[in-house]
């Protein structure tokens, strides 16, 4: 395939900041992206991830900091001078142009000859497997097809960097999985760097080489999907990575990296310390899937709800001090029943209280 991204070594964000009035939407984001890397910006809504993407695309100016593409400072350039490809959340296809003209728009704007434009439009449409729909207007296409056109349009100009703003959020579940694989395939094919904004941790885990967790406009953690999934750096990130159970407690015993914590339940809870020093107050976190009924488990609680999810049941329960517990069980329990729950010590993470605040 002749379509390929323009060459560069690295993209460097240097303390990139953006304020809206008194509100700091982005606080000193620093990140280095290598050519060929797939980066996911992950965070809840309002965390600044779309602002970060718009700053990269040149649609918003920076309040402070700089963006470098190799030795070239690009944050002072206008959007049209940066040459990045962007896929918008609502696709932003030009409604009055057919698929071919949409995909060829960037090439025409760059003054590329008609013959060359036609060739590269064909290639881009081949890459997204949309050869047969080229004469249609965007309004005549399905959501998935529109998505493909948006990607084809962004990659036709062979950008060094492709920016994607929650591109799958408007698609149904099945199509979303399909397009996820497509995006990964296209990324490998181009060899460009991709920065992908999402609030969906599954999407980030399955697509990215590295994930940047943003919260309140700040980078909370940068790491590979494996690192983030197994060992979030603080309780905040852990919560976002699916550790729904979070209890406060006090360290009562230490043994290397393993600590015993009293959380006000029947027994002390054993878990892995993540940067806990001394015997102070801590937060322990456990994924619902790791918390299961066990006769000798430390958590005593009363079942408040039960939900069938195919491979197992997921339940909610209330602890003695009103703590909320989320757990997994093979056999359904009835509401009001008393239950003892436990989790393996290596799946229980213990953070210093207030970490990540």
């Amino acid at each position, binding site marked *: 395939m002749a379509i390929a991204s323009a060459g560069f070594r690295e993209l460097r964000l240097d303390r990139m900041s953006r304020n809206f009035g008194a509100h700091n939407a982005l606080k000193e984001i620093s990140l280095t992206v290598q050519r060929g890397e797939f980066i996911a910006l992950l965070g809840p809504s309002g965390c600044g991830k779309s602002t970060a993407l718009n700053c990269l*695309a*040149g*649609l918003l100016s920076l309040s402070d900091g700089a963006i470098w593409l190799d030795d070239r400072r690009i944050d002072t350039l*206008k*959007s*049209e001078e*940066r*040459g*990045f*490809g*962007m896929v*918008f*959340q*609502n*696709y*932003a*296809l*030009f*409604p*009055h142009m057919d698929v071919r003209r949409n995909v060829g*728009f*960037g090439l025409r*704007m*760059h003054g590329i000859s008609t013959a060359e434009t036609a060739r590269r439009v064909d290639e881009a449409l081949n890459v997204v497997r949309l050869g047969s729909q080229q004469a249609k*207007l*965007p*309004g005549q296409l399905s*959501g998935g097809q*529109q998505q493909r056109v*948006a990607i084809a*349009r*962004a990659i036709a*100009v062979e950008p060094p960097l492709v*920016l994607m703003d929650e591109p799958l959020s*408007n698609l149904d579940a099945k199509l979303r999985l399909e397009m996820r694989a497509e995006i990964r395939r296209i990324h490998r094919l181009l060899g460009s760097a991709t920065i992908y904004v999402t609030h969906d941790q599954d999407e980030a885990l399955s697509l990215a080489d590295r994930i940047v967790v943003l919260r309140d406009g700040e980078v909370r953690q940068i790491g590979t999907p494996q690192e983030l999934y197994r060992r979030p750096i603080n309780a905040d990130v852990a919560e976002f990575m699916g550790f729904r159970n979070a209890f406060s407690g006090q360290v009562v015993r230490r043994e290397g990296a393993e600590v015993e914590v009293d959380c006000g339940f029947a027994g002390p809870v054993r878990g892995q310390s993540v940067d806990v020093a001394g015997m102070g107050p801590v937060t322990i976190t456990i994924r619902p899937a790791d918390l299961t009924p066990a006769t000798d488990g430390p958590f005593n609680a009363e079942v408040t709800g039960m939900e069938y999810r195919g491979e197992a049941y997921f339940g909610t329960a209330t602890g003695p001090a009103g703590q909320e517990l989320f757990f997994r069980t093979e056999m359904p329990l009835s509401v009001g029943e008393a239950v003892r729950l436990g989790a393996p010590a290596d799946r229980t993470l213990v953070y210093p209280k207030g970490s990540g605040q």
Partner: protein
Amino acid sequence: MTPASSTTSPARPRRRTLADRGFDSVTLLLVPAALFVIVVFVYPFLFGLFLSFVPKEGGLFGNYIRFFSDPYMYGTIWLTLRLALPVTLLNIALSVPIAMQVRHLRRQRLLTTILVLPITLGTVLVAEGLLNYLGPQGWLNRTMILIGLIDRPIRLIQNYWGVFISLVITGFPFTFLLTLSMISGIDPALEQAAATLGARARNRFWHIVLPLIIPGLAVTFCLAFVDAFSVFPSAVLLGAPAGETRVISFAAAQAAFEQYDYSYASAIAMIMAVVQFGFVGAVLAVRGLFYKGPAGGGKG
């Protein structure tokens, strides 16, 4: 025949009720509006059409022959077009760039209010005001003399330009507000997408914004043109109704109220309508060639 009726009485098809055909008691609410249109619009129009074919002298087409054989009369079509077309085009040409700037403004409401004022004042009041303002002793001339732009008052009333200026002032808010709502209706992501694809502001306008508002501009043109073509008060008050601003509506008024020839006046009104229909029809036909769907960027 519906399946339900065939089971109950196979021999006789069930009568279709009025409600099946879309008539029910709610339809009656249309009656006042329909009556109003018939009494106030359809009947006078048809009456005028009929009247124009019964001239005081001559045959069926006597009035029309009379109009088109008198250069002083058929010349009014040209004189009116000479005002209405440039005014309409200028208003649209001004509205588009201003609306492009204003759409991002925070104080849009204040501006809108200021712009709506000339519409609410009406053409007569505006014409009276301009008569003073643009006159030889008016502020405009005096200011221009004061700053040395001119050394003698220039004549801006009782001629073509007086009417022209007043039509721009009363017509601009209308075209502007329509244009602003069209331009605001374009998804900002479309222009952003065009920018990331390398389109500079100029190209974003020509390739994205303009094609999407052309159909709306065509309708705006029709409405503004019809309005300007039927100009009467300002042509009389600010213009030279005996000479270069002898517009067609003035000719019709003269026929009706000075010569008391209602039949001839009706014929002139019909000719006026045909000219307007001609332009509107042509513009709408061209509009049909453009994309007219929603100006959004996707399904979301």
